[in-house]
């Protein structure tokens, strides 16, 4: 019964979403507060119903109810419990349900916490949210229904794709979807503003925290996906410029731009039209990402769904929302009053530069992702636009952006002083140049890339620190006063610091791994040793092992450093018996921020084992940096100023702090 109740809850949620998309909107047109208010209880109830449907599906997975087609196709009774639960969204239907669940969650949050929004704005926002939810619920029910039953029910399922049987599946899609779908709120606010023909003062203050939250989740989701691919796929790459990765990277780039332009809008009422457009574009890119991954137009590891009717349906959704929003923008944008003026050299100017570079970068990624698809559609040729394209287009756009990052927070609003900012940054600049030169002479004389990259990464890190120090008044006031001022700084300043420093960490990790990693591929016999980057690895032998739903051959390696045993690594080749699918499980040992990565191949003809060993210097910084960025977003979110109408806490003025 639980399965059918879940199915009915989902259908009921569609009915409520339809009501939500029409009634509050009509209410806003007619000026009826009661009709406008319908959006709130309906959004909250709708969320409860989608959650109930999701719970019913999860229960079916946990109980191995193979009378549900979706469970039979993607589960197996021998799977560990965690993977039964995560298997719920490890397939097309379930992941779409998760998508809608998160959409409903965000809608319910606007309904619950939006009491201080102007009622028409809130009604319009909820109506747009309802419209998106209706479209996707219809998509699920008509083309990707996870509640289709199977009668008679088989006794055993076909198991989940072994690559997905990993903790990564528990974390990566939910985070990614929280990011993707989080941008729907900014989109709804943008469309609501266009419908009303005015941008309320509350608009920017609302859009910013939602964008911030979505951005933080998306950052975490992308980083988690990257690390998952790194350790699961067994060839040690952290980013492949795979269309699926690009699909999540594009909204991140434009979302980052949106985040920054929303600051300008909030503080200075400027860039209104641009911010509205960015909000529309960011969610459009999220929808595009959903389309690319979910329609099966791509064939890659992630594309575990393919059905042309689905593709056409999502394409229709895409055209309706993106086309509709852009058309509305074209009609109404002129009506939005332009905001404050500013000098090119100013905080606003720096943020505009940031926006231009980020959106252009997003455009290059878009071209690199869609071009092969267009070629394939027209000529049938399958071409691949890989790393070389992105190195030539994306990297040259991103480098000046990275150089400019530390300047932004140093410049004053309205009109800034570039020279003064440069003077304040001179310590960071000198230190970065010295580090770059050291790297050039001591590590890598040939490429020069490592030197530039390391200098750039340090420039970002030290620039972020300098900003923090300057805002606390270090060097201008007594250390005690500086400390007091430091602890009193608004949270958003710490957020900026963490986000920019995290970016520096990620850049450092990427540069070090790309330029300085060492790789060895060889055939090893048991007992044989090999040296890599100061460590010695001894292959101890292969031994069989049986897991709950797989068998594997484990290769054990002992790591020596200077003749002393440091640790051991187990790397294995796994065979998932239900699908007869092999996977490689890389052996990874973290030493400081660096990692030793061992992946085994087939047994060679002579009896030895093909072994690939990488030394990946500072590789973990790539993901740690992303986590720090995510923390920055979260810290910023806790800045109480982001809450509209929050009562102000008066504090007596302290004369000692007035020095600056």
């Amino acid at each position: 019964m639980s399965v059918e109740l879940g199915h009915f809850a989902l259908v009921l949620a569609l009915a409520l979403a339809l009501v939500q998309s029409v009634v509050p909107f009509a209410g806003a047109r007619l000026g009826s507060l009661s009709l406008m208010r319908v959006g709130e209880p309906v959004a909250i109830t709708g969320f409860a119903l989608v959650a109930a449907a999701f719970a019913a599906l999860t229960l079916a997975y946990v109980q191995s109810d193979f009378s549900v087609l979706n469970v039979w196709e993607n589960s197996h009774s021998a799977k560990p419990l965690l993977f039964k639960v995560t298997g719920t969204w490890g397939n097309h239907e379930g992941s779409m349900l998760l998508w809608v669940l998160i959409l409903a969650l965000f809608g319910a949050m606007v309904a619950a916490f939006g009491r201080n929004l102007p009622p028409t704005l809130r009604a319009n926002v909820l109506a747009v949210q309802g419209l998106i939810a209706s479209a996707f619920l219809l998509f699920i029910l008509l083309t990707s229904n996870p509640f289709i039953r199977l009668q008679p029910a088989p006794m055993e399922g076909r198991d989940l794709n072994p690559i997905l049987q990993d903790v990564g599946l528990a974390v990566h899609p939910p985070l990614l979807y929280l990011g993707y779908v989080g941008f729907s709120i900014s989109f709804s606010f943008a469309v609501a503003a266009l419908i009303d023909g005015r941008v309320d003062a509350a608009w920017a203050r609302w859009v910013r925290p939602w964008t911030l939250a979505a951005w933080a989740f998306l950052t975490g989701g992308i980083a988690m996906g990257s690390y998952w691919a790194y350790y699961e796929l067994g060839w040690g790459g952290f980013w492949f410029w795979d269309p699926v990765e690009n699909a999540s990277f594009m909204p991140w780039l434009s979302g980052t731009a949106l985040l920054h332009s929303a600051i300008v809008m909030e503080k200075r009422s400027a860039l209104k039209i641009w911010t509205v457009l960015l909000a529309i574009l960011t969610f459009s890119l999220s929808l595009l990402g959903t389309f690319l991954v979910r329609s099966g137009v791509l064939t890659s590891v992630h594309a575990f769904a393919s059905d042309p009717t689905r593709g056409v349906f999502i394409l229709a959704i895409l055209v309706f929302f993106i086309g509709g929003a852009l058309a509305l923008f074209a009609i109404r944008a002129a009506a939005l009053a332009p905001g404050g003026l500013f000098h090119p050299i100013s905080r606003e100017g720096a943020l505009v530069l940031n926006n231009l570079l980020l959106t252009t970068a997003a455009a290059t990624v878009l071209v690199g992702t869609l071009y092969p698809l267009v070629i394939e559609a027209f000529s049938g040729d399958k071409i691949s636009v890989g790393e070389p394209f992105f190195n030539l287009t994306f990297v040259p756009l991103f480098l000046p952006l990275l150089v400019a990052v530390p300047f932004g927070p140093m410049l004053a609003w309205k009109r800034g002083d570039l020279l003064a900012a440069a003077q304040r940054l001179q310590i960071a600049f000198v230190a970065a140049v010295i580090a770059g030169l050291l790297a050039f002479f001591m590590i890598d004389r040939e490429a020069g890339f490592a030197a530039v990259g390391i200098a750039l990464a340090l420039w970002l890190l030290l620039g972020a620190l300098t900003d923090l120090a300057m805002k606390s008044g270090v060097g201008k006031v007594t250390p005690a006063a500086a400390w007091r001022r430091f602890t009193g700084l608004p949270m958003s300043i710490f957020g900026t610091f963490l986000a920019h420093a995290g970016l520096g960490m990620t850049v450092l990790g990427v540069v070090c791994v790309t330029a300085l990693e060492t790789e060895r591929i060889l055939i090893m016999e048991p007992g044989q040793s090999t040296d890599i980057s100061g460590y010695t690895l001894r292959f101890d032998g292969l031994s069989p092992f049986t897991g709950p739903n797989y068998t594997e051959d484990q290769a054990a390696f002992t790591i020596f450093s200077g003749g002393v045993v440091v640790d051991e690594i187990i790397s294995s080749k796994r065979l998932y018996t239900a699908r007869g699918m092999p996977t490689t499980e890389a052996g990874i040992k973290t030493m400081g921020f660096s990692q030793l990565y061992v992946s085994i191949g087939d047994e060679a003809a002579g009896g030895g084992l093909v072994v690939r060993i990488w030394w990946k210097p500072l590789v973990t910084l790539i993901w740690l940096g992303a986590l720090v960025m995510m923390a920055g977003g979260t810290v910023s979110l806790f800045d109480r100023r982001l809450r509209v109408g929050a009562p102000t806490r008066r504090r007596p003025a302290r004369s000692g702090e007035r020095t600056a």
Partner: protein
Amino acid sequence: MLFWVLIALLTLIASLAVMWPFLRNEGHAAPGAEHDLAVYRDQLSELDRDARRGLIPEEDAAEARAEIGRRILRLKQAGISGTSAGVATKGKLVAAIAMTGVLAVPAVSWGFYALLGTPGLPALPLAARLTADPANASIDELIARMEAHLSANPDDARGWETLAPVYARLGRYADAAAAYRRTIELSGPTAEGQARLGEALVGESGGIVTADAEAAFEHALGLDPANPRARFFLAMARAQEGKPQEAGAIWQKMAAELPDGSAWKSAANQALAGLSVREGESAEPSEDELAAVERMDPEARQDMIEGMVACLDARLRENPDDVEGWRRLLRSYVVLGMTNEAEEALARARDALGPDSPDASALADFAVELGIGKGK
């Protein structure tokens, strides 16, 4: 029944959610201007705080304060002209929309569910199905039960022994092989067990007797040299290796030794029949094989052609009525330059076909065309 009550209850809750604002009867909308004003006041106090902390120089703060002030002023002017216009509530239209909204909930949900749902079908958790009465369970269910039992008691040799042939019959050869292995592990090797393991392995590889399977059959014959299953499949291995004589010999022996009515006797006979048919086919190389011959190096090519001719020769010794076959053999020997063999074959053909038969004279004419048989 409970199900229908529950979904009726859910529908009621959803409809109530739509009606909620009307039940509470909220007042009129506060004009948007008040909300904007709250935000601007908030910004002002924030500005004061920043200025006090020294984050913004005093002159900048003053300028920002002035700008926010201007915004408030603009808002107040707009508010005076805006709010007085007011929006008259169109009562009837509002009621109609509300009513439609409330009615849409049951209409849409029950309508869609009638199309998509399977209301009669209960949830079927695996654990519950496995503990239900076995009398009316399907084969699949019985297997699943057995599997559940064996995963809890993996040392139950009889269980594995029962399950293994069931797997094999359902074509789940990999599972069958694993089950036989487990049986052998637990209760020691038997000839029949080894032979059945080998058979499962053959099934898994789509009918090819692999090295693993052959080892299992050899093991079985070591335990019982008369085991028909093992003998049968070892003969098949020979046949697949391209040694039909050896295979045929084993099968012939089996057919001779085994008692009438034995399943293996008829299997051996069938295999023999199949062997002769297959041999006939393989004497005539297919297009692909010929293309492969073209690509070979001359020495290997010569070897292969000679092998094929020898094959044809051997077949014609056993089955000499094939005139076309004799023609091909003669031509082959002539092309290879083996005239002695050609003459000898011509003589054999004449004997076999009857020296005065029309077939024999036609063959003699053919031989003359090839440039042999002039001596007779």
